[in-house]
């Protein structure tokens, strides 16, 4: 394992110290609870947004704390959902009287831990909590009898857009409905050229030959749905975009935010090559790209690979996307 770390057991703790040191004007970190707060939380009268999940997906979620996005992020161990105590504590700290939205990615562990937190918060403090569970990964079969689809790329876009709506002062129910709508209008699919290595495991989660890739992977180094021979950027783009477009489906005349995301070990030059292919496929399908995002935003440690997320948007969503945001990971307009 080759990583810039000290003891694998300390990675999350030390990264949080690093984040705090690097963003002293913007963030506050509760190291006992591994919670990253917006420096000026709680904001009176504003619905507060909390997210969280296993670490290893940086900048998600801690890097999306700040004006116009999250009020707090709870960091779990690498790829391990945070515990209910964290979400409870964060909920109490950020509530400004207007209630709290929990943004949860659909993984069994995350859902259960957030559920327990919401139950405890309701019993304990009477803070109004609503939850949205993201499940945009079309690589996974959706069914009542399974764990359902994973929450992946849409989480980034949702946190940004819903964050802007919260900043406008909209009430909790409206915020929760908006979040649900965004999730329902977004789809993603990812692939890997290499496995990631979980620090505490010390070796790659799966092995891929030099001429192989995994298609349909998530963001936890879990193997994908199928292993295919290595393909060109053009073919990879089709493998990702086609099932995404077919699933909602997106059609001629639709407007989208197109998000090409790197898995942490993929350099920007390759992501732009990918975006070039994705943009061409969308153009041929008559789908308009209203906005785009290209970069490493929801990652899987050092995995090389990428994912494509499309979110169907209208003027309202585009307006909220364009609204000012000031976080370590996404910043514009202020």
């Amino acid at each position, binding site marked *: 394992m080759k990583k810039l770390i000290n003891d694998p057991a300390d990675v999350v703790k030390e990264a949080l110290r690093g984040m705090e040191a690097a963003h002293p004007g913007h963030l506050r970190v509760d190291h006992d609870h591994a919670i990253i707060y917006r420096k000026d939380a709680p904001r009176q009268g504003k619905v507060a947004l909390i997210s969280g999940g296993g670490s290893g997906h940086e900048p998600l979620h801690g890097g999306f704390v700040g004006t116009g996005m999250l009020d707090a992020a709870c960091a779990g161990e690498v790829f391990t959902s945070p515990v209910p105590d964290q979400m409870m504590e964060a909920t109490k700290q950020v509530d400004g009287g207007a209630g709290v939205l929990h943004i949860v990615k659909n993984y069994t562990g995350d859902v259960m831990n957030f559920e327990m937190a919401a139950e405890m918060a309701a019993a304990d403090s009477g803070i109004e909590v609503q939850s949205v569970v993201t499940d945009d990964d079309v690589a996974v079969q959706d069914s009542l009898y399974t764990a359902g689809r994973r929450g992946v790329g849409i989480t980034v876009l949702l946190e940004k857009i819903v964050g802007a709506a919260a900043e406008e002062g909209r009430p909790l129910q409206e915020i929760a409905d908006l979040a649900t709508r965004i999730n329902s209008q977004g789809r993603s699919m990812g692939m890997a050229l290499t496995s990631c290595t*979980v620090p505490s495991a010390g070796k790659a989660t799966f092995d891929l030959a030099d001429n192989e890739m995994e298609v349909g992977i998530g963001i936890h180094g879990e193997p994908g749905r199928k292993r295919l021979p290595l393909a060109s950027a053009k073919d990879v783009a089709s493998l990702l975009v086609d099932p995404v477009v077919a699933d909602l489906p997106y059609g001629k005349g639709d407007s989208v935010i197109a998000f090409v995301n790197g898995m942490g070990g993929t350099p920007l030059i390759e992501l732009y090559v990918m975006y070039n292919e994705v943009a061409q496929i969308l153009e041929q399908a008559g789908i308009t790209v209203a906005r785009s995002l290209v970069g490493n935003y929801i990652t899987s440690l050092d995995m090389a690979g990428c994912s494509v997320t499309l979110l169907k948007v209208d003027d309202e969503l585009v307006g909220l996307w364009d609204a000012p945001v000031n976080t370590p990971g996404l910043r514009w307009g202020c």
Partner: protein
Amino acid sequence: MAEALTLDAFARWLKQFAETVHDNVGLLTDLDSAIGDADHGTNMDRGFKAVVSVLDGNGFESPDALFKKVGMTLVSTVGGASGPLYGTFFLRFGSALQGVEAVGTQELGKALRAGVEGIVTRGKAELEDKTMYDAWAPALEAFDRAAPEGTAAALAAAATAAGEGRDATTDMLARKGRASYLGERSIGHQDPGATSATMLLESAAATLA
């Protein structure tokens, strides 16, 4: 009938399991690498290390107080799927012992069942979803069947049945937890949670009789 189980015996159970988990971190994580995210070993190890230090640092009035504390500790330190599942197991296990004067075979069986029901309530797993429940369910049945022969026999039977359930997960197609993302490709791999659950029962058989 055998002696009632003591607080000391329960602590020995948990400590023995903590040791077993620690010795098998690599195994559990490897199983989780194949069909999950390579953290089940470290998750369990983190949680049960915390449990041991809670046991070492506190005196408990009663088994139910002890197990509720264990459950809370797991919920607060493990995270992931196994944290709420094992946490809920021990919380319910403890609740079932509330007010119980002497924990005999029958009471132990009831507590185990309550714990497993907690797991099902939380995780909504069904049989053959390829989860820890596939070790727990046959273990409960085996326990009840052997209960007339006493705690030792019941736990031994439960541990054996759990092991068979664990082995049976290998051929299952996962429908819950992370392994479900793999679809067909989950077949052929043993479930990590069923593996740790079996160890928990094996530790019980070794310490609670």
